[in-house]
Every structure is written in C-alpha cells, then in structure tokens.
C-alpha cells in the first residue's frame, strides 16, 4: 500500500473539511473531532460539476459518516463515496490515517 502525504494534522478543521492537492487530484479531507477519525474522498461534486465537497457539512445518517454537498445537498458516504440519494453515483473514496502528526491517504 502506498501512502501519500496530504497535510499536517493541525491543518485539519474539527468537524469540517479541507481540500488538498495530491498527485494532481483534488481530495476532500474531513475530520470528526469526537471520534478523531479522518476521511478522504474526491472533492468533485458530480451533480454540481464543481470542486466543492470539502466545503460541505458533515455528520451521520443512519450510522454512516456523510458529507452533504454544499450545492444541491446530496449526501456521500465518507467511507465508500456512495451517494445516498442515487445508487448509480459513487465517487472515489480513499483510506486515510494520521501518522506522526501527518495526514496520509492511499489508493
């Protein structure tokens, strides 16, 4: 498994998202302060056709961690990238971890 460095853990915004450029890909990284979990998915909103998902609100729906797109409010599962409103839409999701104060992702 190859891990790519994304940013410092201190760059994360608690209970919110940031966007990072990794290998020319726009990655949205989210941090749940309570559970100290990081998630990474593509930043591109396939419905709005814009790079905005890192700026959506996060939370949970029936136990799944999700982000709601700031444009048209579709939910995406943060672990799988699956859209909750449209079974045919799934966006890239990445494994994310915090190691030695750095956020890393792999694909």
């Amino acid at each position, binding site marked *: 498994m190859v891990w790519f460095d*994304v*940013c410092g853990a201190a*760059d994360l*915004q*608690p*209970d*919110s998202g*940031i*966007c*990072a*450029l*990794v290998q020319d890909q*726009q990655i949205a*990284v989210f941090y*749940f*302060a*309570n*559970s100290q979990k990081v998630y990474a998915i593509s930043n*591109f909103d396939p419905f*709005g*056709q*814009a*790079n*905005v998902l890192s*700026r*959506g*609100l*996060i*939370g*949970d*729906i*029936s*136990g799944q*961690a*999700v982000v*709601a797109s*700031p*444009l048209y*409010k579709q939910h995406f599962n943060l672990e799988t990238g699956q859209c909750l409103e449209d079974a045919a839409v799934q966006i890239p999701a990445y494994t994310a971890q915090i190691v030695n104060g750095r956020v890393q992702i792999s694909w």
Partner: protein
Amino acid sequence: MKQTLVVIGNGMVGQNFLAGWVASPAVSAYNIITFCEEPRPAYDRVHLSEFFAGKTAEDLSLVEAGFFENHGITLHLGDRAATIDREAKTVISAKGVTVHYDKLVLATGSYPFVPPVPGHERKNCLVYRTIEDLEAMTAAALTSKIGVVVGGGLLGLEAAKALKDLGLETHVVEFAPRLMAVQIDEGGGAVLRRKIEALGVTVHTNKNTTQIVDGDNCVNKMCFADGEELETDVVLFSAGIRPRDDIARSCGLEIGQRGGIVINNQCQTSDPDIYAIGECALWNGMIFGLVAPGYAMARTVIAGLAGGEASFTGADMSTKLKLMGVDVASIGDAHARTQGALVYHYQNGASEVYKRLVVCPDNKRLLGAVLVGDANEYGTLLQYCQNGIELPENPDSLILPRLSGEPAGLGPDALPATAQICSCYEVSKATVCSAIEAGCTTLNALKAATKAGTGCGGCVPLLKSVLNCELAKHGYEVNTDLCEHFAYTRQDLYNLVRIGEIKSFAELLGKHGKGHGCEICKPAVASILASHWNDYILKQEHLGLQDTNDTFLANMQKDGTYSVVPRIAGGEISPDMLIALGRVGKKYQLYTKITGGQRIDLFGARLEQLPAIWKELIDAGFETGHAYGKSLRTVKSCVGSTWCRYGVDDSVGLAIELENRYKGLRSPHKIKFAVSGCTRECAEAQGKDVGVIATENGWSLYVCGNGGMKPRHADLFATGLDKATLIQYIDRFLMFYVRTADRLQRTSVWMENMEGGLDYLKSVVITDKLGLCGELEQQMARVIDTYQCEWKTTIENEDKLKRFRHFINSDQPDDNVVFVEERGQIRPANEDERKHFKILEVA
C-alpha cells in the same frame, strides 16, 4: 389473437385511462395504440398556470419516463386522428397512418369557445388551454401593456391572474351580471368581485362584446353593446369550452343538440364498440368540465372492457380553488334549486368573507354551499353533503366564526368509512385507513400508496388530518423531530438552549441528542445559538455548524466561486462608495449586478480572493451584508419625502435605521423589509416579511409577506404608529418569530400555521397576551448590542484566514473554475466551453 384498442386523445383523461388500463387484469387482451395530437404526451392541465410560476412542460407531465415503451403502447405523437371508418373499423390519421381497431376510446377533450364577434381572429387574440397557448401569451405580453380576459368564470379568473403576473394591466369582461355565475350565487359573486378588484384587476360585468377593432393606443380595441370601449393589447378568450366531437360527428355517432358525444352509463357511444370519456362526452345531457368525472368515466370503461359491471352515474361538481389568492368554493346545490331548500348566510364585510349554506327543508342534511374569502370549512361541508351526515341542530354554527377554542367542525373521526376523501381518485376513508395500518405513516407515503391527494390536491388538508388522527389512535406520535439526531422540534431546542444556557452544539448534542449531527440540525442549532449569544460565527466551536456560505461569509455559486455582497443600508450609497465598489470589482474582475434588494453583488470571487476583497471593502467603509446567512437581508426603500413630491415621511431614513438595527440577527429563514414613503408603495413593502408604509397618521406596519415561488401579500398589522412604537412592535415580532418558527420557515408560513393566525400574533405582540414582550425586547437589545461585522473580525484574525484557500497544501487555484466573457463581464463557462478551454490549454 390479441385484439386492438385504439385511444384517440392523450390528454388528462386519455392518459388516466391508459395508466389505469395497464394496471388492470385485462391488460394482455389488447394491443394499445394511441393518437396524441399535441406535440407532447399528456400533461397536467389543471395546474397549467404553474407554467408561469416556473414549472416546465416536463414538470407538468403526467407520463412517467418510459411509460409507453414499457407497456408496449404505440404512441402516434403529434398526429391527429382524422377520420373513423366504422364499417372497416379503422382510424386514419392526419399524417396518413391507418390502424384497425376492435374497440375505440374517444378522449378528445374540448376546445375553448371563442365567441364569433367580428375581429376575434385579430393579432394577440388568444385562448388558454395548452402549453402552446401559454407560450403565445408570454410572447404577446412582452410587447403589451394591457390585457383583457373575456369571461369571468373559473378559468377566466385564473387567466386574469396569469396576465397580471405577466405584468399587464388586467381587465375581466363578463357577459353575466356577476363573476363565476355557474358556481356561486349573487352574494358570493359580489364579495369575490370586490376582492379581485382590490388586487388591481378591473372587472366589467353585464358587458356584451360586439366587435374588436384597431386600437388607438393599443393593438386592439373592444367595443361593447352599451357603446363603451376598452383599449387593450391582449384579448384572452375564456368564454367556456365546447366538446371536440367533430371526428365522432363525421362518422355518424350520436351527438347532443348543443354538442358532445352521447354516452350511456357504460360510457358507450351509439356504437357499442366506441366509448367516449372526459370532456368530449355528453352524459345525461351534461358535459363535465372537470377532471374527476373524466377519471370516473375512464374507470368505468376499463372495468367494462375487463368484463366487469361498472356504471358512470354522474359526478359531483363541487370545487375549491384559490383564485388570485382568494379562496372560493362551491359545493353541490349552491344555487338552492332544490324545492323548499333553506338557506343560511354569513357575511363579514370587514374581512370580506361570504358563506352560504343550502340545507334541505327538514334542516337535517346539507345540499350545497358557497364559500368566498375563507374556504377552511370546505372539506367538512363536502363530507356532510356527500355522505348525508346529519347536521348539528344549528347548521349555521358550521359557518359562523369560532370565537373561543371550540373544536373546528367535523373531526375525521366522525366520517364514515365510506366517506370519499379524494374525489379525483375516489379514495375512501377506509382505503386511507388501511394504508395507514399497512405502514404509511407519512403524508408522502400515503399519497404514493393510495394516490389520494395527487390529483387537484384539494383534499390534502383532510387527508392529513385523517392521518394524524389515525396515528394518534394507534398510539403513534406524529413525528415532528428536527432530524435523527434530535427528537425535538426547533422550538423545543430553542427552549432547551435558553433554559439550559447552552452555548455550543457539542453541549446540546451531548445533553439532548445523539450521533454526530447533520446538515439539518447543525445550521439550525447554529442559528438558535446565535440568536441567544450572538457569538462570532467562525468561533472554533461553531465553525463546523455553518453551511459553506456562513463558513466563508459569502454565497457559493454554481461553479464553486462566491459572490460578495456588502451592506448598502436602505439602498443609499454615495458616489465615493460606489466608486470604491467599482474599483474593487474591476481589480478582481468580478461580475457586478444590481439586485432586487437594492444593493450590488459582485460575483466570481475565488475562495482565496475573499479576504483581500473584503479587506479593501472594509477599508473603504463597507461592512458585510449577511447575504450568506439566514438573517436580515435588506431594507428596501423608496426615495421618500426628501425628494419625492408625494412623499409623506422619510422612508430612506427609516429604512437605514431599521437595517442597522436588525443587521446580523440570525433567524429561522431570511428576512426582508421595505419602507415606502406613501401609499403609492414604490418600495413594495407589502411583499416583505416586514413592510412599513408612511401615512398622514403615522406609520402602517405590514407583516408576513414574501415574494419568490409562492408570493404572499403581507397582512396589515397596525396603523398610525409613531416610530418608537413601530420599532417596539418589530422587535417583538421578530424575536417571537426567531423563538417559535420551524427551521427554514418564512414568516408567512409561520403565521399561517399558527393557531389563531394573524389575530393571535397581534395579541402576542400588541396586547402582550403571553406576558412575553419585555423578554423579547431585552433579547433583541442584546443581539443589537453584540453586533459585529463578521468580515472585519475575520480579516483581523490570521488563524481564520488560513481557511480561505482552495488547497491546504498548495497555492494553486481550482483549475475547474473557468470564466468566459459575456456583455463585457465574466460568467462561468458552460460544459462545452470548459472542454474547449482545457484542450486549448493542453495544446
């Protein structure tokens, strides 16, 4: 071998027939072919006028995607059936297609009757029935100032509203002495007329149009038998409908004396293999100009073809509608034509309400009713009438205003199981109840399962009360939870925050919620917290709660860039400030536009540009306009007594004062104000949440209006106010709204849902019925005292500014944001242009 069933006409009833047919047991016995003359398959004509409110032809479609293909129905679109050869049993279309039929269903509907007055074919003489008609109206309105509707019936008034909404000076010309002569009686017609005229439509009754000629100032001029004339650009005929029986007539089917294809109780025409349904059919000497009877005919034919026994035995013509915002309803024998019928009247001159009950001679059963101005009792009265439920001892108690808290009318419990809840789809109370038993516990689920409420929509309030009543009986609580994280309403949460002095989302979630929250509860709680403590919204603990617009203090646009909206209180701006704004727009190449709220929006700012832009704006003396928040937006004003020769008071001064007073107040939804300097009302204050109009006797206060998708005229709240009292009332009104409204509920809906409505609101705000006013004022004072310009705070805070970049680990901008030039300014590139641009870049 399979037989062939041909359906001519794919309108509302034709489509309803097909949809019912494919669900019927006999579906496999026939191949189906249908001819649809219009360029598109069936759409919802009943809600046709919503086309003007932005609904598209697709939105109005009644045909599910893939319907014809999936059910193997051959559709001849845009092709009119031209002749029927009953000998050969064939139908020949205008395009030359010949098909054989074993059974034939005529669902050809009707056409608008245009009186044959000379000149009726002149330019801009239009009708109102199809989407194409509406497109023609829109086009004609572009170059017109005045419009006249010929015909003051139900459709004519709907058309008048459309003309008005298109911005024309509107007149209604009616031949009869009153409006809606078919449905309502004289008293009701008079009240209706006054109400319609109050909305700015001129009504002319007893008018017989003799010819239409060249106008002097307009395209057309109408001449009347009494010698009067009326100049107009558009003439819209709405003088009734006539059945489309031409094709039936020419193949020799029996036709009624005044038109209409004669049918029997099985909806068969004089040829037993040919049926007629909907508005083209004449049953027992009657044409039914409503959808519900047409649907009932369709069901009858389906049952008959499937070998069952079914009869069409007439239909109820009761109707309830909202005409130009005025409720009008007519039930059963509205004109009291039954021998010996007794009549009860109720008329309230001040609020322009008219009600009439027609009761049978023994005073026990309801025969009919007319309601104008307030049709809340429609559902109840219709049930009394249709189910023959015995009336209370004093039937007039059903229409008299309820002064104390007596229960309203007939509860759903009093209805028999056979009571018909939805007449469009003939859904009985028993069907509704068993769907609820089977697990349909929301209104949407119930609609999907039973179809009730999906036709004209008139029965939805009744359906909802049956649902709530049944749920309560089964021990369910009606779910009003904010979301899955909080089992409370917004108002509950508000009180929990207030009483528990809760200061953060985490604390509230820990004490009263579960999970992590979501995009529903987070912003709602952020707003509640703000209206209590008015903290800086980007404070660390509130940060994750805000929608992106609040987080970045700007409004996200479709391409992920933001708009920048500085406050221009009251719409007043000095040349220097205007120059400063222009300079910033030019420097950052922003698209600039003047908005309806009298300020200037700058579009196309990239996330990383926002701080620099705002730094310059703040240095120039601007502050945030809170366009991103659910909060006070603008206080629009007219120029007022300072300059205007009609002005009675200084509307600009008051608007600025109000805007500065309430700026930054977080609320359940956005709030808009306006102030006009006299009753000419140039600031359109009666279309706002809070509207103020200057009069000789002081300020008049209007509340709970709004524009947008469902415009609502504001209600007059108080008159003759001095400024101090005015502000006191507004303080109380706003805080009471902030406290008690649901999330994303505008003031209009909030008040409409409030038990007691406007009167109750007045009693809380003016006479302090709840003893709450002191507290509301104090809370408002606190919010005003703690105001800060969020942008100023942000640009002074290094740490906060870190978020304003697209990538945390790179200074590159988002390469998906691409602009092109249009009319000398930027706009987001569309998909095609973007592809092109990228290729150029690579090359």
